[in-house]
């Protein structure tokens, strides 16, 4: 009951800076263009793409997706804890997010190393060009995500700062990295 009252009382609000949403929408357009080129050229030579794609291990992709979803989950919890004033819990959730992000990075590097061992380099086939390109640019976004998490930690640690808006902005960025991976995962591993 209290929850309901609280919810209706609070006006609808934009989570974080509206500016970050401009980034999210613009950046997802850029990624949509990458994906569009990938899907288009895939249909021009489906056999070669399918043949290369068969060398990816779907289980690694599923694992990574679950890990990144976990990190997003804890980031979402962090925002709610911070909003409720539970800053210790919020900090713990950011660290948890960073931990899952780190696991994702390690699995990703491991997967790259394995593909290179199998002889699939950046320039060996069209599919692996796109694979390394899309996972690589996403990797860069994730690395920036760690800087963003650092900002969130910096905000949460001192009572003098604790800007809820900035924490939400950081979370919005992190979820963007997550949903971009959801798309990349679907397009690289499962699309036929």
């Amino acid at each position, binding site marked *: 009951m209290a929850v309901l009252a609280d919810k209706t009382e609070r006006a609808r609000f*934009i989570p974080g800076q509206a500016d970050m949403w401009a980034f999210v929408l613009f950046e*997802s357009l850029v990624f949509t263009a990458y994906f569009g080129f990938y899907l*288009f050229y895939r249909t021009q030579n489906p056999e070669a793409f399918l*043949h290369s794609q068969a060398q990816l291990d779907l*289980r690694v992709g599923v694992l990574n997706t679950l890990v990144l*979803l976990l990190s997003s989950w804890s980031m*979402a919890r962090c925002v709610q804890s911070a909003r409720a004033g539970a800053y210790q819990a919020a900090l713990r959730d950011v660290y948890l997010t960073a931990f899952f992000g780190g696991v994702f990075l390690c699995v990703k590097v491991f997967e790259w190393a394995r593909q290179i061992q199998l002889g699939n380099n950046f320039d060996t086939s069209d599919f692996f060009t796109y694979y390394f390109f899309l996972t690589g640019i996403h990797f860069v976004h994730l690395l920036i995500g760690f800087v963003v998490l650092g900002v969130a930690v910096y905000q949460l640690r001192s009572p003098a700062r604790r800007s809820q808006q900035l924490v939400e902005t950081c979370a919005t960025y992190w979820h963007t990295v997550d949903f971009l991976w959801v798309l990349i995962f*679907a397009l690289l*591993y499962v699309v*036929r």
Partner: protein
Amino acid sequence: MKTAFNKRLLVVWLILAALTLSYSWIDHSLSGSLTASALVTSCVIVIALIKVRIIFREFMEVRQAPVVLCRLADAWVVLIGVALLGSYFIGTAIR
């Protein structure tokens, strides 16, 4: 109050995880056949977009955002979907 919120997020995560695992099932049911399939592709993209929309609404809290942002986020999901399926089917058609 906190536990109530967390339960919802947990359910959201479980749904997302289930959708992710559904890919395993799709992949398994194809049992390694190397053929292009517009049906599989469409399903996969649609499932991914559903996941994206759930992330938008629940994790990114668009659900509680002003209506403009809600509509904008939904429009973006549709836009991405149209662009992806469009490039796939146009590519298939003019091959």
